[in-house]
């Protein structure tokens, strides 16, 4: 059962709304509080995609759990700015922004908007909502470094009972997970979209909170990341922030905040979508996957993981334990590009990543990946091989584009025609070089 169905139809808490049941509208946004030391950290999720199996031991906060006698600053700002019209999306926005008030992000316009980037409103045109966010930020500026939750309770952003939550969560005993069950669910953000009708009746093993599958560690130049690492955890990891200067902008192109709070990196790999953003990202990094099955384990390169459309080099009983890859260093250049109909919270028409290991103006080793251009997430092996060992030049870019075109086989679908996807990949390869080599003549690259 999804958390959404549980709160609406078992607990009859109907403030949480159903808009799409696939994580694309945010009407069902709920906060999840997890114990961490003596604190509880809250993040937003779309409850339509969260199995209740992942709620164990956590504080689940619906709009009803936020309501006090009076409106909180989030609610009051929405009222004052006329930021609610039909009202159906409103609880989702209120919950998302109340969650924002509970975390320690600086109260900037950008952060407030990021907090509600998974929420769709069809009535307002968002301007009044932006104004409400500005007014919320004015209030949060008074926080001055105080603990956000303490501040939130003191200022009636959330009710007093939040104080009791850390203690109450400690009293919840962990349960023995039945790892015999073959079907494993991590974040659930893909399974609950693709298999919504059937998965709720299946016996499942919930592995999202399995501590053996968590953690991001750096060993020399190498990074090891647990398979159940969520996209948000990856985005906030100091290791990633240090080695991928453009990380923030890249992550912003991947889904939405509440989905990133649930979706795992390995889930993106096993989903096997030809267009998986993180798959394309890690293909360029030549990530290796450690697969385990009981005591047995083996390593397979992500590049070799895809055998055909939605076909993996993975037995059903195997799971990905960790992802290992070499971190880019100061001489390396990395870039990720993605274009879709709507820039954010959309599936790419084409996406691509590139890693270039440089020595001066010579490319020691190059690696380019592309999604949306064939049945599997594509490592452009011929283009990558060709570029390695060459000096950077406009002529080289032209050659790479031509080789890439021979390696791909896009089809026309709802995300674009074949002709468009071909043109788009060429453009995005140009974009890689325009971003990574600002010293080159942009105009010449554009008109290759």
């Amino acid at each position: 059962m999804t958390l959404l169905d549980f709160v609406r139809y078992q607990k009859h808490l109907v403030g949480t709304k159903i808009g799409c049941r696939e994580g694309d509208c945010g009407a069902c946004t709920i906060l999840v509080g997890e114990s961490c030391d003596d604190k509880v950290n809250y993040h937003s999720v779309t409850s339509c995609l969260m199995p209740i199996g992942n709620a164990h031991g956590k504080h689940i906060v619906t709009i009803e759990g936020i309501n006090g006698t009076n409106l909180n600053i989030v609610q009051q700002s929405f009222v004052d700015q006329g930021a609610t019209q039909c009202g159906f999306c409103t609880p989702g926005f209120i919950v998302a922004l109340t969650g924002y008030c509970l975390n320690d992000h600086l109260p900037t316009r950008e952060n407030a908007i990021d907090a509600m980037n998974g929420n769709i409103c069809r009535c307002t045109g968002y301007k009044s909502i932006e104004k409400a966010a500005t007014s919320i930020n004015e209030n949060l500026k008074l926080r001055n470094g105080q603990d956000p939750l303490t501040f939130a309770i003191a200022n009636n952003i959330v009710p007093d009972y939040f104080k009791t939550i850390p203690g109450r969560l400690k009293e919840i005993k962990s349960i023995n997970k039945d790892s015999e069950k073959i079907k494993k669910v991590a974040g659930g953000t893909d399974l609950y979209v693709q298999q919504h009708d059937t998965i709720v009746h299946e016996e499942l093993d919930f592995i999202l909170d399995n501590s053996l599958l968590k953690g991001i560690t750096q060993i020399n130049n190498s990074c090891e990341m647990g398979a159940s690492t969520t996209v948000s955890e990856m985005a906030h990891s100091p290791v990633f922030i240090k080695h991928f200067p453009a990380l923030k902008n890249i992550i912003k192109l991947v889904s939405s905040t509440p989905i990133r709070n649930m979706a795992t990196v390995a889930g993106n790999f096993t989903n096997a979508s030809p267009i998986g953003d993180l798959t394309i990202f890690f293909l360029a990094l030549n990530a290796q996957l450690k697969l385990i099955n009981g005591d047995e384990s083996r390593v397979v390169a992500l590049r070799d993981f895809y055998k055909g459309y939605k076909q993996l080099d993975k037995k059903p009983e195997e799971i990905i334990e960790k992802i290992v890859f070499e971190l880019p260093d100061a001489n390396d250049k990395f870039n990720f590009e993605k274009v879709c109909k709507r820039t954010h919270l959309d599936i790419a028409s084409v996406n691509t990543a590139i890693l270039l290991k440089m020595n001066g103006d010579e490319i020691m080793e190059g690696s380019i990946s592309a999604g949306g251009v064939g049945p599997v997430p594509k490592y452009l092996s011929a283009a990558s091989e060709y570029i390695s060992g060459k000096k950077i030049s406009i002529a080289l870019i032209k050659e790479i584009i031509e080789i890439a075109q021979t390696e791909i086989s896009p089809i026309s679908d709802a995300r674009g025609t074949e002709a468009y996807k071909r043109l788009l990949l060429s453009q995005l390869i140009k974009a890689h070089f325009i971003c990574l080599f600002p010293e080159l003549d942009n105009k010449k690259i554009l008109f290759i």
Partner: protein
Amino acid sequence: MKNIDSFTHTRGESVYLDDIPVLVGSLYGAVYGSPLAHGKITKLDLSEALALEGVVRIFTYQDIPGKNQIGGIIPDEPLMAEDEVHFNGMPVAFVVASTKEIADAAVKKINIEIDPLPIVTDPRLAKKNGSLIVPPRTFKLGDSENAFASCKHIYEGIAETNGQEHLYIETQGAYAIPSENNSIKVYSSTQGPTAVQRHMADVLAIPMHRIEVDVTRLGGGFGGKEDQATSWAVFCGLAAFLLKKPVKYSLNRMEDMRMTGKRNPYTSDYKIGLDENLKIKAYEVSFYQNAGASADLSPAVLERTLFHSTNSYFVPNVTATAYSCRTNLPPNTAFRGFGGPQGMFVIESAIAKVAESLGIDASVIQEKNLLVTGDEFSYGQIAESEAGACWNKASAIFDIETLRKEITAFNSKNDLFKKGLSFMPICFGISFTKTPMNQARALVHVYTDGSVNISTGAVEMGQGVNTKMVQVAATIFSISPDQIKISTTNTFRVANTSPSAASATADLNGKAVQIACNNILQRLKEVAATKFNCSADDIKIENEKVFVNNQSSEMTWKDLIGEGYLKRISLSEHGHYATPGLHFDQSKEKGHPFAYHVYGTAITTVTIDCVRGIYEIDSVKIVNDFGTSMNTIIDRGQIEGGLVQGIGWMTMEEIVYDAEGRLRSNALSTYKVPDIYSVPKTIDLEFLNTQNDNLAIFKSKAVGEPPLMYGIGTYFALRNAIKAFNPNSGIGYSAPMTPEKVLLGLYHSKNV
């Protein structure tokens, strides 16, 4: 005044269809829709589905006691298919089960065999096949054929607009509860409670007086719940009526997207002629409307396309013909603008084509041809124009000269990014174009404690109409808005309502409230006059105090009500309003169909990323003709929301049907509406305030639909940016302008 619903909205306490507590024993429904878009049903096998534990009954057309018919304008739409199916998703059977999950599972177990027939999705092909919903209609002014002879510049072309999914965040749904004596109460997420009542009466073969339709509010409508909410309610009503059990059906998103119609797509041919001064002298246009499989509201949508075919311009010689073409898609329907935007896009394309061909800015042509008061529309009504006032105010206040210079400078300096600018003037007629629909009623009760309860035919769907109704009553009675409660929209309290549509809901229902309140007030004044021994004209109520000859008395509003009760006057009133002066003769296609027009001008600037083909909307600067806005916060919200919805239609919202008539963009993952990042960085809104007499409630002009058409400006700003990069681009006039079209346009006729 703030929206009266905003307190409960922000607390998640507002009640929508799916939030109504269900009665014990309620059953749940699901529709089985045709898997094919066209064909003859040879076999329908329900046995496997019926065998599923928990399935109570499966209804087909054979179970209908009355007529299997829900067509609103023309009786051409069965509730359930009989021997033929006409679109993919057309209801064939209605499963009722003990839970929603079982109903959904049973739907998957229904087997059907269909002999396929040819599938037509292209309206031009349908027209060629002679497959029209209604006979074509032509609006004519002057003599366009001869006028072209005197034109210096003549251009022809094709312009196309795609459909648009309403994407109300609350999906369609209904909950029907049977009651004694063959009566039914139905909760429906509908903009048209009377339509639900009327069609349910026909289907069940019972009188309308037995059907109570109740609507608290909708989680968005936008036209999509005007006619298309009916079938779900009738399904529930049918099952509840026959099973004597409450039945609920709240559609999931994919069902909703697959089975409901959308904004009508159009493809159109135009020919435009201008004289040497760039005055438009002649315009001929043929609209091919994609109606889908049945009429629904398409004939009315078609009519409004004709009414708005010349947008905000005076054209002395017009021949506009429109064809409503029957295709194998779900019946397309009302959507904010109701055919107006589709008509306006064509003349804007025609003007853009002339401008691009002559190498001038389209705004030069637009400005020279704006309507002035006294100009005649092609349908005979005489304009009372604010077009020039809006245009001039926008140009001045937003400093168009500086804006243009900045854009020119930016484009000359940047290779990777280009900016584009457009003007979009609008002119939108307010009233139902079907004259008899321009009537409304309101029921006002004043209770002995002084509190007031109002019922109207208006359905609250986020547009703030209930707040405006409170304002009307509070103003007339001069009492606090807290004393006034708006009740649900209910066919037992207010009968024979027009749907909440055509931007006219606040005007029509507000005037009915005004009439009812004034009548009660007059009676109260007479009571007070008797007490104070003066004339009723000497009595005034201000801030809940009775004034006699402008002197405050001791008597409060509450005292006066008490006195009125003792004197046995009626403290209730049923007000009726019909818009005066409206007429339209369809045999001549001439008349005065609109109470008034709303005007406005939007200036849009965009920036295109010429590497990736993606874009941002920098700003939209609007001067809108509000008359005298009675609620600026609500009206601003309507403008911003309508604009963004229009931008969505013109940019990222792309409906994709395949050749088999299957909807490919069938979920929020494949159909994208604007999110918070994709809206214009700034929306500047200036109010054109006028005191002119008009038929709007408190002179506050309608704001529901007109702003959607400002979004059309984004299309043309993007075109202009593409042309700044590639002046030779042969990009056609086809909306939406997706990133795909932009990129292909940028590199059109260039080698990859």
